[in-house]
């Protein structure tokens, strides 16, 4: 059976419905694209996105599942075959969707669109929506599927098995380096959001004792009662945000929690190290519960808020920075950096690590990869669209005053106002000050990194329907808290994952290092990992050119490199299994991704323009240092030397990433040619066929046939009560009959 719900032909009614969905979506895109010079409602973006998702999910995702992947629901999944009620266990598709979405959704889809808003909202939105349905969702789903067919193997293992040792090692290196850059960039976002903000710093600091308390409660008092523990934690968290307002208002306390960026770097590094070596039940696990709850809650609230308040877009559809020169928010031309800056939300290589981790070990039915893999990524794409909306309903003058590096804007509202006017946008010093006052911050000038801008947008939306302007400062810090909380959760989990990867690799060289329980090894390797991302974090915070400005493109390139590895593995498997005619499904996103990433790398490596090329930048500043001149934004010779070193290091990183892409792709192409020639010895590492005994629906909502099938001897699944599932009373007769 191909696909669970494959039926011959569509009814006239459903054809009519789908044509209507298509027309509404197309009309919304038309409104967005053609409304030149007038401001449109954010509702059009929502309608266009939802229409596109619906069509893509119904037709394209189904085509991939049935024709390309040939999902077979009579085949037992690893969850069924290897069920041990711990890591392998058949899990309800809706529950697994929740798990998977919570694991893939992070700060990426919230930060990238905010930065890319400098080009106007249209280029970013098109890439988020179209990129997701044609590339990102496809990558997530096919990686999930192929990993599931291999008993949940990781991406690195699949690259080694299907491509070869060179591809495998390159994939492993890619995963490790993206981890380090990711952690540094995300921590940088937190530093930028909390620097000189006593309110934010206090609330975030409070999450540590709250987490300890939750951990103790869950371990000692009420083992396993996750929900009540989370409820207590969230209540305390809200209290911490409220108390933050009082801390902010009290000069003595405020001074105590006003930390400089460098002090915050130190705090985050110490925190990351502790979280990596402490037992997870103390800090990491309870924080994970808190941040997951906050994440889902805020996303839902944001969707509701946008639909209720229907804000109007202030940002132009296409701004004047959509050129080869690029804009002031991050370094890089319009093409290809729109596609690099917005990684998560459209195509995120990092997802392939999640899709080849725990999720494939828990799927009940093969065809459910559509709901879980494709569906969860559509949801993340939608989060990115909302982030784009939140950044675009802010006045453009204020947006640029917040996002241009501080070295360009100067330290005061006056200098910032002049600098922004110089870029052709209007904002007065008074307006800048009152915007900061309205959210309870000292200043909003040069609050780069995306989080403060997003928090401002969110606070405008939330206060529009919950509490009015009196609560705007609360909502701003609520949004900052929500972002910082789950970024720090990514930082502590990521440090731990990177530590295990490194221990695993180094264990091959010297055995004791591979033993994760050996304390000196664990502490030493944790320190190495923390030092690695801590270095980039410190550099980012002190970079005279602006850390986000410099590092975000490097992060984007590394993330897209990982996507290239995942898509290459998918193309390789399709070719090796005789499905070359469908290799275009992952092949087109792969080609697009490789062209974008390599041309971005090319610019970053070879461009003569010091604004674009890292080495040109390094050389230009070195030349000035030799002459003893200081050029803005540097203020001293030390600044100048720092730029020389930073740009050189960033350049070397990009060289490494580009080389890795070429290596993986080259090695894979060798395998493609051998497979196409029909060489002997091309093996596919798929698990054998075992017949499935589980009966479970394929999509998110069970069809009436599926409900009947489950009622007739199905087990292991539970349909919702009151909807005609097997717990409902109305299907009792079917079971008897």
């Amino acid at each position, binding site marked *: 059976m191909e696909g669970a719900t494959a039926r011959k032909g569509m009814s006239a009614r459903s054809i009519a419905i789908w044509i209507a969905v298509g027309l509404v979506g197309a009309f919304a895109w038309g409104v967005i694209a053609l409304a030149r010079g007038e401001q449109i409602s954010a509702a059009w973006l929502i309608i266009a996105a939802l229409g596109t998702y619906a069509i893509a999910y119904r037709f394209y995702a189904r085509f991939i599942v049935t024709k390309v992947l040939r999902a077979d629901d009579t085949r037992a999944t690893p969850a069924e075959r290897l069920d041990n009620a711990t890591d392998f266990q058949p899990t309800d598709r809706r529950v697994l969707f929740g798990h998977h979405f919570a694991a893939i959704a992070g700060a990426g889809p919230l930060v990238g669109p905010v930065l890319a808003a400098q080009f106007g909202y249209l280029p970013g939105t098109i890439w988020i929506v179209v990129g997701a349905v044609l590339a990102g969702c496809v990558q997530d789903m096919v990686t999930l599927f192929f990993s599931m067919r291999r008993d949940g193997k990781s991406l690195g293992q699949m690259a080694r098995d299907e491509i070869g040792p060179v591809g495998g090692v390159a994939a492993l290196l890619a995963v490790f380096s993206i981890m380090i850059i990711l952690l540094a960039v995300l921590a940088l976002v937190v530093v930028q959001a909390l620097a000189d903000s006593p309110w934010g710093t206090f609330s975030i600091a409070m999450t540590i004792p709250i987490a300890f308390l939750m951990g103790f409660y869950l371990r000692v008092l009420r083992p396993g009662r996750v*929900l009540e523990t989370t409820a207590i934690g969230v209540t305390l968290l809200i209290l911490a945000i409220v108390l933050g307002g009082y801390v902010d208002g009290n000069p003595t306390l405020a001074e105590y929690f006003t930390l400089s960026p460098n002090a915050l770097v130190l705090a985050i590094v110490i925190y990351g190290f502790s979280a990596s070596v402490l037992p997870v039940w103390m800090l990491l696990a309870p924080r994970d519960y808190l941040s997951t709850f906050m994440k889902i809650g805020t996303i839902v609230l944001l969707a509701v808020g946008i639909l209720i308040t229907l804000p109007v877009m202030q940002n132009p559809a296409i701004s004047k920075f959509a050129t080869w020169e690029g804009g002031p928010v991050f370094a890089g031309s319009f093409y290809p950096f729109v596609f690099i800056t917005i990684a998560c939300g459209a195509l995120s290589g*990092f997802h392939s690590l999640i899709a080849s981790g725990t999720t494939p070990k828990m799927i009940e039915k093969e065809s459910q990869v559509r709901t879980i893999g494709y569906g969860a990524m559509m949801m993340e794409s939608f989060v990115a669209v909302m982030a784009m909306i939140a950044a675009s309903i802010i006045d453009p003058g204020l947006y640029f005053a917040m996002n241009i590096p501080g070295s360009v804007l100067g330290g005061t509202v006056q200098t910032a106002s002049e600098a922004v006017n110089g870029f052709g946008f209007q904002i007065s010093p008074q307006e800048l000050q009152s915007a900061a006052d309205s959210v309870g911050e000292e200043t909003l000038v040069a609050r780069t990194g995306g989080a403060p801008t997003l928090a401002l947008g969110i606070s405008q939306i939330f206060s529009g329907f919950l509490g009015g302007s009196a609560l705007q400062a609360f909502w701003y810090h609520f949004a900052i808290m929500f972002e910082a909380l789950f970024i720090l959760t990514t930082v502590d989990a990521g440090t731990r994952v990177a530590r295990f990867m490194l221990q695993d690799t180094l264990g091959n060289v010297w055995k004791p290092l591979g033993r994760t329980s050996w304390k000196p090894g664990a502490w030493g390797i944790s320190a190495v990992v923390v030092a690695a991302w801590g270095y980039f974090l410190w550099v980012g915070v002190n970079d005279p050119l602006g850390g986000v400005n410099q590092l975000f493109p490097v992060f984007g390139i590394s993330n897209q490199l990982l996507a290239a590895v995942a898509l290459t593995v998918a193309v390789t498997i399709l070719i090796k299994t005789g499905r070359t005619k469908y290799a275009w499904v992952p092949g087109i996103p792969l080609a697009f991704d490789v062209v974008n990433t390599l041309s971005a790398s090319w610019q970053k490596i070879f461009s003569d323009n010091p604004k674009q090329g890292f080495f040109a930048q390094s050389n230009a500043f070195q030349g000035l240092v030799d002459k003893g001149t200081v050029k803005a934004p540097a203020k001293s010779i030390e600044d100048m030397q720092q730029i020389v070193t930073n740009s050189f290091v960033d350049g070397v990183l990009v060289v490494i990433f580009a080389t890795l892409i070429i290596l993986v792709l080259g090695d894979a192409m060798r395998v493609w040619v051998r497979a196409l020639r029909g060489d002997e010895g091309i093996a596919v590492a798929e698990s054998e066929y075992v017949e499935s005994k589980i009966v479970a629906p394929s999509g998110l909502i069970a069809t009436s046939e599926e409900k009947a099938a489950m009622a007739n001897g199905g087990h292991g699944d539970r349909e919702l009560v009151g909807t005609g599932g097997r717990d409902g009373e109305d299907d009792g007769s079917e079971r008897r009959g």
Partner: protein
Amino acid sequence: MTVRDAVRNISWYLKEVSGESDYDRWVAHRREHHPGDPVMSRRDYECRRMDDRDSNPRARCC
């Protein structure tokens, strides 16, 4: 669907997603596949599960 059904469904979903019902499922699994074997208490089970995560960290995405 009545309000009571809705509350039941939501609480079922939250317990599943948060992992609160994992223990019950594990007990059922033990009873079915290893009948007669002693079954860990909830406290021991939760401690063990948490400690497993010490050495099998799950990445959170960007």
